[in-house]
């Protein structure tokens, strides 16, 4: 892919690599074992402009593009999938919809502090009974005296306990089905809004994944994002971008695992030889690298299409599905190559395997991705 990247993108990648190695790698184990949210890393990311990569400079962003943002997620995920998803959810799922559908007021009030990294963002679509069936929103928003009154709850919200701003979806007109869903910008301090219990997870353990509870939550009418009834369209288009972020996260996890494997097979000796000298191991590694490179092509393809404004839902879904499946396969294989050591917490590959699993599930399970892909081609 090198030949398709601009000088700016290549230099930014140098920066991300240096940053990830110096700031992210040393914390990765703690983030996992202590369910530690790396607040100081987020602050440092804000300092260098990572929290607003694909947004224009006049809005406080870095003036970069989606490919550069995708590479940032990838480089972080090589060492720490938690840090990667904090950035991805913030950028793709919160900043992006405000940038696309926000009013001048909303951009000034919310987008600017978000892209500067002064605030952290989150996205709340999933509900206990609206997972893959996201259109079945139970949260309601009723318009009363210049306010929308929100009632209901959300679940599995990434950055939930740490975010300042949430994009929240709710039914404004149940009779219209998915065309009755609207999107709102909700601040963490709004009356009637509270954070519920955090999840205890298999992987991405430092990521703050929580329930959100709305009990007569008062949202000012100027915080309606887009128009009433546009919510589902906003959600789906936002998720197209978000899936590229998850795909990049999965890609980074796979690349991180391969780097660990390449180191290990040179050091580990059995039968008086480094295990990398055995053809059985070499074949595993060849497959791991080939599949990861193929995933990279799909991920970068989607990111580049997004920058050109020609991304389709299937492009993003294919990148996400393929990269996450590869991440799961590669990390599982990495643990196998490490043998008993791979199963312990002395090496990072078991964490990578646990982290990889979520990429097959969130922002649409891979089964949902297949529905999206097929729907675009079977018309």
């Amino acid at each position, binding site marked *: 892919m090198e030949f398709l990247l601009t000088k*700016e993108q290549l*230099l930014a990648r140098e920066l991300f690599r240096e940053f990830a190695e110096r700031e992210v790698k040393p914390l990765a184990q703690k983030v996992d074992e202590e369910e530690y949210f790396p607040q100081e890393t987020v602050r440092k990311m804000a300092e260098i402009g990572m929290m607003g990569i694909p947004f224009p400079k006049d809005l406080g962003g870095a003036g970069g593009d989606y490919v550069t943002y995708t590479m940032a997620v990838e480089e972080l995920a090589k060492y720490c999938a938690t840090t990667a998803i904090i950035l991805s959810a913030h950028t793709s799922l919160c900043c992006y919809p405000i940038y696309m559908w926000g009013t001048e007021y909303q951009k000034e009030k919310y987008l600017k502090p978000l892209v500067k990294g002064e605030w952290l963002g989150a996205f709340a679509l999933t509900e206990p009974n609206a997972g893959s069936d996201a259109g079945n929103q139970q949260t309601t928003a009723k318009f009363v005296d210049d306010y929308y009154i929100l009632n209901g709850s959300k679940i599995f919200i990434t950055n939930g306990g740490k975010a300042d701003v949430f994009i929240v979806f709710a039914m404004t007109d149940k009779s219209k089905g998915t065309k009755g869903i609207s999107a709102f910008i909700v601040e963490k301090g709004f009356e009637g809004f509270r954070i519920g219990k955090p999840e205890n997870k298999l992987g991405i353990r430092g990521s703050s994944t929580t329930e959100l509870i709305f009990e007569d939550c008062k949202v000012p009418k100027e915080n309606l994002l887009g128009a009433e009834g546009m919510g589902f369209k906003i959600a789906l288009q936002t998720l197209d971008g978000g899936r590229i972020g998850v795909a990049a996260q999965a890609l980074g996890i796979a690349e991180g695992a391969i780097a660990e494997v390449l180191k290990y097979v040179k050091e580990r000796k059995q039968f008086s030889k480094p295990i990398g000298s055995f053809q059985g191991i070499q074949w595993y590694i060849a497959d791991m690298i080939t599949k990861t490179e193929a995933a990279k092509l799909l991920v970068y393809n989607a990111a580049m299409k997004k920058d050109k404004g020609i991304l389709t839902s299937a492009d993003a879904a294919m990148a996400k599905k393929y990269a996450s499946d590869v991440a799961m396969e590669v990390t599982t294989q990495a643990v196998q190559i490490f043998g008993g050591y791979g199963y312990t917490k002395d090496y990072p590959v078991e964490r990578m395997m646990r982290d990889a699993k979520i990429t097959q599930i969130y922002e649409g399970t891979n089964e949902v991705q297949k529905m999206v892909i097929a729907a675009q081609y079977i018309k």
Partner: protein
Amino acid sequence: MRILVFAKQVPDTTEVKVDPVKGTLIRDGVKSIMNPEDKNALEAALQLKDKFGAKVTVITMGPPTAEAILRESYAMGADEAVLITDPLYAGADTWVTSMILARTAQIIGFDLILTGRQAIDGDTAQVGIEIAEHIGIPVIAYATDITLKDDTVVVTRELDNTYEVISTKLPCLITCTKDLNKPRYMRISNIFGCFDKPITILNNSILKFDKNEVGLVGSPTKVKKTFTKGPKVQGTIFNGTPEEGVEVILSKLKSEKIINA
């Protein structure tokens, strides 16, 4: 205030390999970076700029590919970049290099010059102080702390087993060590735009040296022989707890009679 920072592009390794026949550095496959302590010098300049306001100009001498470290300097926050490049200057030793850099500094003008203490490829630590000598300004080498008040700098510098605190008036030159600061990262917003910024190219038609004064011809240093150190013995990797590791190392040191049993 105008601050000049002299920086050098170097191979990213402290284990530089040398071509046994030509006696030159093997650069193929080795990534090039800004010399680490030159980055400390740039950081010091940028901190002074943040505090007092200053125009920071980064200057490098080298082949055209040395442009990379100037783009990086822009991405860190430098205001101007200058590339001194001329085939006549190839093979310059520290004396000739510092003479060229000194003339450049005098043409551009400055209040303060900052350089790294030494480059990781040559390790001479001579160029910075020689620049000051050519120009005839005070120099303080090995800075670990710099404070500026009006036109006076107070510098803490590190010597072998002691620190000195020295002050002098501007204009002067300070060479910077890695302990001076932690260089900032590039800013992404600066990366997008840094390739559109101008780089001033200086060559001998501007610097006007006699061709016998510069390059390999003009350099009084004559390299007699360059060679690569013999390879190190393959290390062994021990897997186990730190306590077990200590035992392994101790018994090894004892058996090799490096320490007493």
